[in-house]
């Protein structure tokens, strides 16, 4: 179950994790992009976490809307509008709810995927964060319970690592063509961490990957 408290805790934990992983994500982006994905994500989720600290929100919709706005105003780059879209979709899906069950979480994730596709005009397999979001949200949809959350993390992690072996055809890494093969997509890694922290906040006991470049 996702509550106002667990979602707040998730934002804080994800912000902290991104701060730790900032250099790893920057380094990955350095190889196949412009070297700022970690800095962008850490800055954005720090802003979002600070924005919601000490605040009370009427429902998950209001909380997610606040996070979306904070991301939109602080990230920039490609990841800003994309992660902001995720939280806007969450806000729509979970409007007026103070807690949601895993079916509703799965619907929120599916809507987020749809939003990401619409915003970024990418398909699965183009070496973008969509490669992670799609299988992970499908895993939860297939089994909307605690185990499904863990399965989502597993497929997110797997997809993030698999992004190493394909060339990018969307985003900045696409300009490198075949030279983008051999490096994991930074947005896919930050997304896998998203699922790790979301699962840890909701179901607990997630073994966190120690991501390396």
């Amino acid at each position, binding site marked *: 179950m996702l509550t106002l408290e667990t979602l707040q805790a998730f934002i804080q934990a994800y912000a902290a994790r991104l701060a730790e992983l900032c250099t790893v994500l*920057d*380094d990955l982006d350095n190889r*196949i992009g412009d070297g*700022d994905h970690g800095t962008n994500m850490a800055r954005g989720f720090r802003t979002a976490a600070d924005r919601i600290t000490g605040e009370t929100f009427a429902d998950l919709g209001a909380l997610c809307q606040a996070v979306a706005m904070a991301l939109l105003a602080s990230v*920039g780059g490609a990841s800003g509008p994309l992660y902001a879209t995720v939280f806007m979709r969450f806000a729509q899906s979970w409007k007026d709810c103070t807690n949601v069950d895993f079916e509703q979480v799965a619907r929120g994730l599916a809507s987020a995927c749809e939003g990401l596709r619409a915003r970024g005009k990418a398909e699965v397999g183009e070496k973008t964060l969509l490669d992670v979001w799609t299988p992970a949200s499908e895993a939860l949809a297939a089994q909307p319970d605690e185990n499904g959350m863990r399965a989502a993390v597993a497929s997110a992690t797997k997809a993030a690592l698999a992004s190493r072996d394909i060339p990018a055809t969307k985003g*900045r890494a696409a300009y490198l063509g075949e030279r983008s093969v051999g490096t994991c997509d930074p947005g896919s890694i930050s997304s896998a961490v998203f699922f790790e922290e979301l699962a840890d906040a909701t179901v607990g006991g997630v073994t966190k990957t120690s991501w390396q470049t």
Partner: protein
Amino acid sequence: MKKLMNQPDQYVDQMLEGIVAAHPKLKRIAGTQVIVRAHPKAKVALVSGGGSGHEPAHAGYVGEGMLDAAVSGSVFTSPTPDQVLSAIRAVDQGQGVLLVIKNYTGDVMNFEMAADLASMEGIAIEKVIVADDVAVENSTYTVGQRGIAGTVFVHKIAGAAAEAGMDLATVKRIAEKVIANVHSMGMALSPCTVPASGKPSFVLGEDEVEIGIGIHGEPGTHRENLRLADEIVDTLLDRILAHSGVVTGDQVAVMLNGLGATPQSELYIAYRRVAERLGAHNIAVHKALVGEYMTSLEMAGFSISLLKLDDELMSLLDAPADTPAYRQR
């Protein structure tokens, strides 16, 4: 790489403070990273921007005959939609606003979100997306070509159209004509270092260069051994000519753009070869711009942009401009 800076997280903010301190004809919208003209004019407004680190782009092109506002993101990071929206609101004189966006996923998404918000507020808004870099083949990668230094020609020519009082649809048509006719390609001799990370964007061997480089420190399409300036120019120019459809008898404008650390002497050595090659093809250079117009921090290297001119573009290109980085009578 050593940086002349204070705290890395103040890099863009302090740069913008320096820009407005140095140029009284510019001002900054308080609390934003938006630079506008101190004395706005009733006309269609032009807004551009993108990540910082490309100076003088884009704040250096704010002024008479060019932009009305420039929005600066963090280094190499597109500005956020709320910043772009502040710029649009500040410059709209009721005659509409044209956004000049470089074709990067991040820039396009952030500027488009701002355009949507501005439309909702009733502002007439149009956008053009510059995609002049011929290094990346459009066909293979669905992302399309990047926008690089050719963008400055869009600022100049669409800016002159707006300054002349043309309406939003006309200014947009002219901007799109420039975009259709400008082709660019770049190369790097050395990487650059983003202040926040402190690490070089890539590592090159003593004799290596990157061909087909963008303007965000990302590696190029491939790596080669360093060759003579004339040979490097030929590699870039051949590809540009192949894409541009420029033929014998055409009139063009050329930009030989330094990426940051390459001395002007070497830009002129490279331009010499461009002029020689175009002369041999009987392509007339109506105007040549040699210098730093769209940089990538302290990257060593350059790009060539070739703009095919017709009478309309030529007269707008020749119109006066008075901005920190581009002035002509």
